């Protein structure tokens, strides 16, 4: 359900970049929290790895990307 709403949101954003739909945009927050958690882990690890961090972030967004397409 959330993914469906997000898909609709993305399509709306494509046609109206100024869209300010706070209620629906807030649906992204759990994904953002996941991304922040990855950034934290990387910063705090003994050997931070930017490239790995970006891969993990993309993976975190995988479901979302599949859903919106």
């Amino acid at each position, binding site marked *: 359900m959330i993914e469906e709403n997000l898909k609709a*949101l*993305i*399509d709306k*954003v*494509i*046609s*109206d*970049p100024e869209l300010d739909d706070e209620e629906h*945009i*807030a649906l*992204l*927050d759990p*994904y*953002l*929290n996941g*991304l*922040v*958690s*990855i*950034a*934290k*882990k*990387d*910063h*705090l*690890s*003994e050997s931070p790895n930017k490239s790995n*961090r*970006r891969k993990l*972030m*993309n993976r975190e*967004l995988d479901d*979302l*990307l599949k859903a*919106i*397409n």
Partner: protein
Amino acid sequence: MKLTKLKLSNFRQFYGEQELEFSIDPHKHITLIHGENTVGKSAILNAVMWCLFGKVLHNYNQPHDLVNREAANSRAAERICKVTVEFEHEETLYSATRTYNSRTKNDDAKVFQIVDGDFRPIRHAKSLINLIVPEDMADYFFFEGEGLIRMGENEIGRDSAEAIRTILGFRYVNTVIEDLDYLRTKVRAELRKKQREQTGQASLIQEIETYEKAIDKTKATKAKLEKSIKESSAELKELNSRIGQSGHEDAEKAQKELSRLETQERGVKQDIIDVRKQRQLLISKYGWVIFGSTLFNKTLDFIEQGNYRGRIPPPHVAQIIRELLEDEKCICGSDLKPGTALYDKVESQLHTAVTAQMHNRVIRATAVAAEAKGRFSEFLDEVKNLERQYLKLQTREAELIANKDIQEKIIKNIAQSNIQQLVTKKESAERKLNKAKDELRHELQDRASDSNNLERLRAELRKNTVQQGVAMKLARQEALYALLIKRCTDRLTSFEKEALEFLETTNNEALKKISRQELKFVLNDDFTFKYLDGADEEIGRSTGETLLSKLIFVSSLIQFAKERVNVKDEFVIHGTIAPFLIDAPFGVLDEEYKKEVAKYIPQCTEQLILLLSTSHWTTIDDHIKERIGREYVLINHQTIEKGERTEDVITIPPKNGEVYKLSKYEASIRMSSIQEIRR
């Protein structure tokens, strides 16, 4: 988190094994450590910092020289120092240990959980420590008073912004933004490739690429100019400080006055910006009134003209006509039988009769027009008021500039070669600074609308992209990244706003308790802050007041961190309750302020560790003695003979207390040691 014990082994001045316990008694939560200069107060502060975070304060002398020199010189095998910090957090005991070998440069840190005396190693030590006290926040919990004084006035805005962002953990979110931007760029490149394959997009793509290049160029220019501004500002600050301490009485006096005028000028400039902002806000607040005023006035005049009064709306009301027709009785008493001429005549009035809805609409329209007329005169009053303020501020700014010129001429006319050299250098630095500022302003002005235009064109291109296949997938992906970045930025702004409000309130509450004069703390949206007196004029501050304001600011940050301890939002970091460990916090404060701060700071924290020299402590003892749970003196062991030297002693408590020696002569090893005091 509360610190329970500190063990030092060959760390800096402390030879061999030394240890002290911190008070964790909630009623006597102060641990007081007395020490004269160079005996090791800063070493204790840095030992805690180094053990927990692997770093020392940026102004710590010879930061890589951690191993005690006596130990390093006497036995090669002992080129190792070790610090252990034991602490409790949420009813669990931990022990953090860090060792450093100055020969191999090996730095090794371990953290253990202590369960029934058993030390169980923790695998992710760094993560655990950061979970309890985030490393970035540590600078605000463990600090040196003198470092605060050195923090320049012009750095306050940047530092307070940095502090707020640190306490909220913005750096993780900023990393996310940076990474999303990188991912977005990659996707955009792929998308652009697909879009090029589609017909009719070439000119749009070209336009977008022109903007992208211009924005990249601006970024590089901006970074270069900002660096130049920072360097010139630092040079100017240094030159002003040298003139202020040149030893020439007139130069020092004029420089002091100049600094005071510059502080006031900054305040006035900020006020001018605020008034301009308020003027812009008036347009959004009264826009509908301003642009509709002529129409509203005409409408109102039209409705209120004598000839029309009572006639608009028309006097006959539909409801009454319907009732007459139903009752088949006219107002004049005649019968109204359907089919008669009279009935038809009365019924025909229904077409022009006013309904309740129409009546209400006209009344509402009249009310709106009347309100708009009133609001327009409100708008005019506010505009006039702002104009008056603006003129007053401009006059004040001109006065300050003229007064600054006078002081600058005084300095310039001093016929002393070293002053002349400083003035020449200062003029050159000022020219460089102003040139860089102008260039930056122009660059930003020229490019102000570029980002918006670029986003608009990118959106247009996305919209034009064939609504199927890979291109569309990529377009969606790019839109998603853009949306995630926007959401991150919006949320950070909202958190910042919340923090600003909290800090402003807390600082003002503290000022009410501590300051001798009526002072108001105002934090601007750009994080710079100012102090206003009772007449809302910005005040110039003495060094003591500057230190006081910074101590209050740091205390309010600690309270902010405490307030946020139970925040569950994963987007920003949670707050923390940590000990407040301060070396020489009272520095240049006068006696009255020392007492007030001594009363105030213990209220801001659950554990306070104070490192004080005798001169800073004597007058405040009365205000903290009831809360002292543990007390130590640092003793300086010297290998030289005492000879004619005066004995360094401390009397605890200051009145009729016991006398403790602070230095020992003819020792076999030069070192510092820790001795506990019991009152």
